[in-house]
């Protein structure tokens, strides 16, 4: 535990921040070494007393997000994928300070959101919105649709009179494909897809620049998923939105995302262009993840080789030393358990965190057994 903390500051200095390297203007949002650690220690006084007396580590910490750096550019959609419990949603919430980050920075328009006071943050929220996973529970069941969508408008005083608020709500409802005549209805009177449209309309009410979509389609039927994704894409074109699209559905991400970031146990392990990452994933974990996507072609599907990962995701309370993935990685060598790999630009705009590959040897299958060409990119943490 202690050495993992020791590596963090050095990591900042050497780690490449995945973004688009070509001059493409300023990023809209820069995440720098963001950390969200949940302190489980100190649940009871008794725990503390016994632990202290036995001389054990006094706190247990869940590292839900552990040193994530990423640049998100205006108008792009970044897909964030990973298994359940890897910290995707926590990262999305930490960006909007719905969960307080415990370290690192979130730079938005040259301001560090993590440092803003609650009052300042409320003002900035206009530009950053969120779409939620469960369309029903994200809507207050006691409020009409009109009040739900109108609430942000009123909160930020974007419309003067009551009639203006209502006009704005109607406009928003039409934008997302809902009939304004439903304005006086309650959320439970809508289907899941319609509820999600309401959630989207609420997010759009403030004309945000950036929207975190936290698994916006995973609670919906497959046909409704397509509708919602098409809607999101159309809105992106019309309103020049930037999305962080969090999902465990790799096919959905391939459909909607420009770039994909793969997360494992609170860390980003690979970031690349969406087309590239599906065609030639570099990191063993990404390979396994992508090989798990079924292909809608029986002949291809019949010969498709799946990489089956053994074991479960390790508990983020006692995350493994070194590379978090080494316990399940078929390519792991001894060094992997000792060294925390950092994201390195293996190919142009293609970042991966694995010591067994490097820019010179990007294909892990051709790297000689036992060699770790990416070692120079990282910091030795033990010995």
């Amino acid at each position, binding site marked *: 535990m202690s050495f993992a903390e020791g590596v963090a500051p050095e990591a900042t200095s050497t780690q490449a921040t995945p973004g688009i390297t070509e001059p493409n203007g300023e990023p809209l949002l820069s995440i720098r070494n963001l950390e969200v650690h949940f302190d489980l220690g100190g649940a009871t006084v008794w725990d503390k007393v016994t632990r202290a007396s036995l001389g054990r580590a006094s706190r247990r910490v869940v590292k839900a997000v552990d040193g994530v750096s990423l640049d998100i550019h205006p108008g792009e959609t970044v897909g964030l994928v990973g298994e359940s419990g890897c910290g995707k949603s926590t990262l999305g*919430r930490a960006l*909007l300070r*719905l969960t307080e980050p415990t370290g690192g920075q979130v730079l938005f328009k040259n301001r560090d959101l993590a440092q803003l006071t609650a009052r300042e943050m*409320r*003002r900035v*929220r*206009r530009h*950053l*919105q*969120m779409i*939620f*996973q*469960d369309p*029903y*529970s*994200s*809507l*207050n*069941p*006691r*409020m*009409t*649709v009109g009040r739900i969508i109108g*609430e*942000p408008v009123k*909160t*930020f005083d974007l419309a003067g009179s009551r009639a203006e608020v209502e006009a704005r709500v109607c406009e928003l409802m*039409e934008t997302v*494909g*809902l*009939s*304004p*005549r*439903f*304005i*006086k*209805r*309650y959320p*439970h*009177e809508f289907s899941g897809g*319609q509820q999600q*449209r309401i*959630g989207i309309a*609420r997010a759009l*009410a*403030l004309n945000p620049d950036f929207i975190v979509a936290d698994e916006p389609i995973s609670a919906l039927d497959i*046909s409704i998923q*397509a*509708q919602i994704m*098409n*809607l999101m*894409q*159309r809105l992106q074109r019309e309103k020049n939105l930037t999305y962080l699209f969090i999902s465990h559905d790799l096919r959905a991400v391939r459909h909607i995302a420009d770039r994909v970031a793969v997360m494992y146990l609170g860390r980003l392990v690979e970031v690349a262009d969406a087309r590239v990452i599906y065609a030639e994933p570099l990191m063993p974990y990404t390979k396994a993840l992508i090989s798990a996507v079924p292909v809608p072609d029986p002949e291809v599907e019949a010969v498709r080789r799946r990489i089956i990962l053994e074991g479960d995701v390790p508990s983020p309370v006692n995350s493994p030393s070194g590379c978090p993935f080494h316990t399940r990685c078929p390519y792991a060598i001894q060094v992997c358990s000792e060294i925390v790999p950092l994201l390195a630009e293996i190919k142009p705009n293609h970042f991966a965190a694995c010591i067994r590959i490097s820019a010179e040897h990007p294909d892990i299958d051709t790297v000689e057994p036992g060699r770790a060409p990416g070692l120079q990119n990282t910091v030795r943490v033990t010995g």
Partner: protein
Amino acid sequence: MKDEPSPIQTNEVGLDKLKPALTSLGTPPEPPVRARRGNTIHTTSELAIGEGDVYSNEAEIEAVAGKSLWRDAWRRLRRNRLAVFGMVFLLVIACASLVGPLIIKATTGYTHDYIPSEASLIKSFPPFTDTDGSFSWKHPMGTDTTGRDILARVLFGGRVSLTVGIISTIVSLIIGVSYGATAGYLDGRTDDVMMRIVDVLYAIPYMMVVIVLLAMFSGQTPHGRLLLLFLALGAVSWLTMARIVRGQVLSLKNQEFILAARATGVSPTKIIFRHLVPNALSPVIVYATLTVPQVMLQEAFLSFLGFGVQAPLTSWGSLAFEGIQNMAIFPWQLIFPSVTMALTLLSLNFLGDGLRDALDPQMRRG
């Protein structure tokens, strides 16, 4: 709409021909090709695939008022016969308690504390009996040992009992909701401390506390003691309320709509009062309805022991206490107040159960 051909032509040629005549289910599917917004008709090419479905079967254009969850609950409550019986009975009792004593005073001149001056009237008459033993409407419930009209006393006692029940419940509601919501909202250490205090209070035999309190202030006027009774009973029945509210707030706090409210910049106070409180209300209402009979029973118990309401005021509990002394000779002195009280408590419980069914969270989506 499905049957008649639409007068609006779409851009796509031969779209109707693409429509299968019959699907396996026997009905042709409505393709999401047209959408109507106000006076404009949009066709598929303007909307992404599948997006138009929301409009596809719109017949009427006028706005539809939705059914709120409260109205849904009210509808379910009305279908529950026992709950409706409870409501009607409570309404009757409440009205009778309010206006009944006035009517009796106007017609017969009796009030709850009117003792006739004539010596021949100071005795307990059975119901519907006049001084000469013939049938009479003068005292439908008879009179008590001092000749007071029992109906007037029961109705007046109803005023006291119902007021005790309602005011004490309101007291417990105010303390319980604010305490529980604060604990749940602040969370962490504050929550721990606040709820441990509740645990400790739970461990105290509260009836003893109330008895001690009432005994300490025994020198007060009857009305002062009544006020004390309200406060004492309310102050001990807020504990469960606080736990219920805290539990509700804790589970609601992590719901996505609270996150959404925070994400859209809603201030904490507005989150509590606009989002948390209305959603935490249904179990609170149910519990409050069930607290009223509980408190009334406690008041009756205290009055029965002689600590509660004292003469010349009266309540159902103290009436029953008086009645039980002469139970063998004048049974009507006991029967009428206790039956009225039992029916009222039953009605309140029916109403509470009905409310619980109507507001049941599992039926919310229905």
